[in-house]
């Protein structure tokens, strides 16, 4: 046990924890974006609502989800511990501005991370908490004519407040009743301030990962003449460009649609 403590209380051990939790959170972003692309299907939230129901009711996903929440907390906590230690390591600061060349994102990981933490708290309380633990989410009924494959949707009022989902077939019409998270998303994304906050948070994701992704590999000691450039380009193009743009597109598109109505 003391050996274990010694390892993870050392400067390098704490960095290892930051790197591993950080990379785990990066992999989650890919899955999260992939699933949320269902928001762009013009089906009145049918696919998205079923996906949300699946995520909250499939046990393996739930286990990974709690691992994920733990990772977020550990990543933030260790960042705080390391930052406090780093501040203590220079009790008297320089009078002149440090002109040593270093990227802006690498010098502002704490600020970017704080924005992200605030974002995650708001984001999860608005959607995850509201979905799982409140009765604020309304329900929707999707009727698919199995002969023509046409789906229509109407609001649905459940008999019991704990209703989650039901699937039944009547007269060759499939009836799916499910919580309408999509409506809540669409409602949130019709608020301009909310949309602006989301877009700012996605800028923070971009700059945080522009440095963070490749930095994690450096910390782990995976530096190689051939592979490091690949890690850099994945960190830059996938994590700092494609993923943040993908996420930011959701509130922006929904907002524009809401103003067009």
């Amino acid at each position, binding site marked *: 046990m003391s*050996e274990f403590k*010694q*390892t993870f209380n*050392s*400067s*390098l*051990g*704490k*960095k*290892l924890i930051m790197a591993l939790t950080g990379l785990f959170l990066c992999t989650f972003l890919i899955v999260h974006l992939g699933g949320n692309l269902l928001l762009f299907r013009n089906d009145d939230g049918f696919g998205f609502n079923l996906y949300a129901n699946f995520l909250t009711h499939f046990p393996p996903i739930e286990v990974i989800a709690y691992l994920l929440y733990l990772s977020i907390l550990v990543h933030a906590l260790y960042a705080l511990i*390391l930052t406090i*230690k*780093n501040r*203590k*390591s*220079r*009790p*008297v*600061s*320089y*009078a*002149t*501005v*440090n*002109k*040593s*060349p*270093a*990227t802006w994102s*690498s*010098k502002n*990981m704490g600020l970017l991370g704080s924005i992200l933490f605030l974002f995650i708290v708001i984001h999860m309380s608005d959607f995850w908490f509201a979905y799982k633990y409140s009765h604020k989410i309304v329900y929707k009924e999707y009727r698919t004519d199995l002969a023509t494959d046409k789906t229509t949707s109407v609001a649905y009022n459940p008999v019991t407040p704990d209703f989650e989902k039901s699937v039944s077939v009547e007269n060759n019409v499939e009836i799916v009743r499910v919580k309408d998270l999509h409506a809540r998303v669409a409602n949130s994304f019709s608020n301009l301030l909310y949309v602006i906050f989301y877009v700012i948070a996605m800028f923070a994701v971009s700059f945080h990962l522009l*440095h963070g992704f*490749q*930095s994690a590999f*450096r*910390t*782990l*000691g*995976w*530096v190689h003449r051939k592979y490091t450039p690949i890690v850099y380009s994945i960190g830059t193009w996938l994590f700092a460009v494609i993923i943040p743009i993908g996420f930011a597109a959701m509130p922006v598109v929904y907002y524009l649609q809401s103003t067009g109505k």
Partner: protein
Amino acid sequence: MSTGNMNLTLKVWRQKNANIKGAFVTYKAEGISPDMSFLEMLDVVNESLIHKGEEPIHFDHDCREGICGMCSLYINGHPHGPKNAITTCQLHMRTFHDGEIIVIEPWRAAAFPVVKDLAVDRSAFDRIQQAGGFVSVNTGVTVDANEIPIPKVIADEAFNSATCIGCGACVAACKNASAMLFVSAKVTQLGMLPQGQPERYSRVQAMVAQMDAEGFGNCTNTGACEAECPKEIKMTNISRMNNDYFSAKLFREEATHDHAGGE
């Protein structure tokens, strides 16, 4: 190249000792030749201070040819001044322009307490070295040169790491006052070579433990150290050190026992 002498304004950090608060004092440096080194310019200023009966500015220096690692000034926001790959003693006054204001500070780090003015105590580096920066050799007759074959690439890489002069510019430049570039260079220069293998895993653990005990900050891979290092030590060393450290701590039980016995 030089066209007449320069007049400069210096803002110098003056501090009696580690326990007394310091402050900036402004001095005029007049009639400075552009061909002087930065330290020679300070010598001229000190001469005039001595003539006036004032306490001269204290700063570290020794070889004045860029190899000893003693000089240590933080000049206008850069350790060793604004030019790349040189120490303060190799910095010439022609780098500055006539009438410029030059701010001179000591290295700022909890692990490098100010001794006086611009001189800081860097014995933390010595203690890190003593913790593991050595190889064991048998006494007896001198062995033949090149007795152990070493691939050229390895020899070159180890030598690149070994060029670290331990000046502490990496700590001074780092926003976290981290010493990881220094420690990793010292770990790597020995760990890469056959002669350094017996202590390879105990070395990295002992040196990292000492580094932590000295109160240096943690690396965030910003790269300021690499950019400011007068010997251009690469950050790759930090990854190599991490690799050896995690390897020892997580996958080499025998190495951790060795270390536990040594502490």
